[in-house]
């Protein structure tokens, strides 16, 4: 299984879900199961989604016109729904990146002034889910 040594809060996961999906689709067209696999791979297993909730998210992005979906056929002959990012989706992804960079820069700036933060970060994880 995916053993995570770090817990990422629900809010953070929710906020990062859309940009992450858009980013993965910007790389290549994909489908639900493969997107999830890629998320695990990219986050080193730290980000665990409830698999089923990816699909409503994809549908929301589709409704917003950021991705488009087509039914295709999988290697094994079954139906599979593929998603592709739209030009609007790429714009939205760029906007997400600007925002995340701003947030992350601000956080870095804040924390570089806090000495304890470094000590806390270096501390080995205790009492976390293993």
């Amino acid at each position, binding site marked *: 299984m995916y053993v995570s040594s770090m817990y990422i809060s629900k809010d953070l996961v929710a906020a990062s879900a859309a940009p992450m999906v858009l980013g993965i689709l910007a790389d290549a067209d994909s*489908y*639900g*199961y493969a997107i999830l696999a890629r998320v695990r791979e990219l986050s080193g297993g730290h980000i665990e989604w*409830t*698999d*089923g*909730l990816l*699909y*409503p*998210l994809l*549908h*929301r992005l589709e*409704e917003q016109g950021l991705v488009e979906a087509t039914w295709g056929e*999988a290697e*094994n*002959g*079954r*139906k*599979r*729904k593929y998603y592709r990012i739209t030009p609007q989706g790429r714009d939205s992804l760029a906007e997400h990146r600007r925002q995340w960079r701003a947030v992350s820069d601000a956080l870095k700036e804040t924390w570089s002034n806090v000495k304890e933060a470094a000590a806390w970060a270096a501390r080995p994880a205790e009492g976390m889910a293993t």
Partner: protein
Amino acid sequence: MGRAPRGRDGNVKTSDAGFEAQIAQWREFILKRRGVVAADADELESHLRDQAADLQASGLSPDEAFLVAVKRLGAQDEISREFARVHSGRLWKQLVLAGADAPAPGEGTQAPRTELRWVIGLAVLAAASFKAPALFGLSQMDDPDFFALNAALFFMPALAAYFAWKRRASGRTIGVLVAAFVAGAALANAYPFHSGAQTELLTGLHLPIALWLVTGVAYVGGEWRSHSRRMDFIRFSGEWVIYMSLIAIGGGVLAGLTAGAFGLFGVDTGTFIVEWLLPCGAMGAAIVTAWLVEAKQGVIENLAPVLTKIFTPLVAALLLALVVTIPVTWTGKPMDRDALIVLDLLLVLVLGLVLYSISARDASEAPGLFDRLQFILVLAALVVDAFVLAGLLGRIGEYGFTANRVAALGENVILLVNLAWAAWLALGFLRRRRTLGATERWQTSYVPVYLAWAVAVVALFPPIFSFA
């Protein structure tokens, strides 16, 4: 939506019967959720299969793989809630789509597109048939009696034709329907009624009842012996009345706006509205309404039972108040004719409430507060009916028999018998000696009585009372 297990190529073996059954069951459950449509289930199923295949490749048995995959997918209500949030429109749109998009499988009815064509064609036919008498010099203004007498004959044949087509009625059923409508038309129009005759008015009132029940034979596709199909027709009738009322309100608004808008420019649309828009619209609406009721059947909760729940306590209170008021205010004189008519209408309403509350109730539920309320309603109705009967007999004793009084007497006796036995059965149900099925069966068994009485009034009363 059961799909045959399909053999997969490659070295991963998931096409095991147990696994397929589990997937099918999972799919069935998620499809029952609001906001999840077949395409979503397809997508989720595809995910489950991919996940399970990977898990099996890493050494799990198909059963284990299924369990882990489902667990990882998350709780069904959480997923479906998210779907519903994204597609909130779906919760509403299903109402329309169900007819056009997803015909209930295995119902053995007709294709949706063809159906719409039939509905429109028959609606136009019903509307046109209202204007057909004009070709023979009969106008709505000069011969209102003719139109009142034949009102049901303008749209019910089209309605029956729609159901006969939809249910693929047998030749024999179609023969019976045609014969019944021809006989109805012949009786209404061949009898030499005196001008303003009571019997003519009675025919005008009872012919629609008889023909509506004949239409019911088409509705049940000729299976008129089946009690559950009869109950379906009763449900349909209630919904039809409600939808027809809604459409009538819309039609009224439209007519008012038409008159107002053209009035601004000095164009008088009065004749057009009264002679064309309203009658033809009503005839067409009768057919479209039937289609609407059919299309939304089962997709959302029906309205008739909801209204029943609201009005049963109110009508029970009204009847209890009447039970007290009538004896207190009674002067000893035979009851006024108008009073009798109002009370009769009230009793018909009670019967309707009883019918629709049965039609909507889950028969396996134990008797509750609502059933007690309904029992009180029926008891109060029985007392009121007894007053009405006494009043009627008083009038007959004083002024003798007329067609109107005999018809009213017959109807009250029919209602009294129905309500008395219904009260007895309801008592048995409350005391848990009987099931609700007994009440339901009693009501569906009683339907032919209405037909027989309506036919008797239409066919026998005019000659018996010498067309007066």
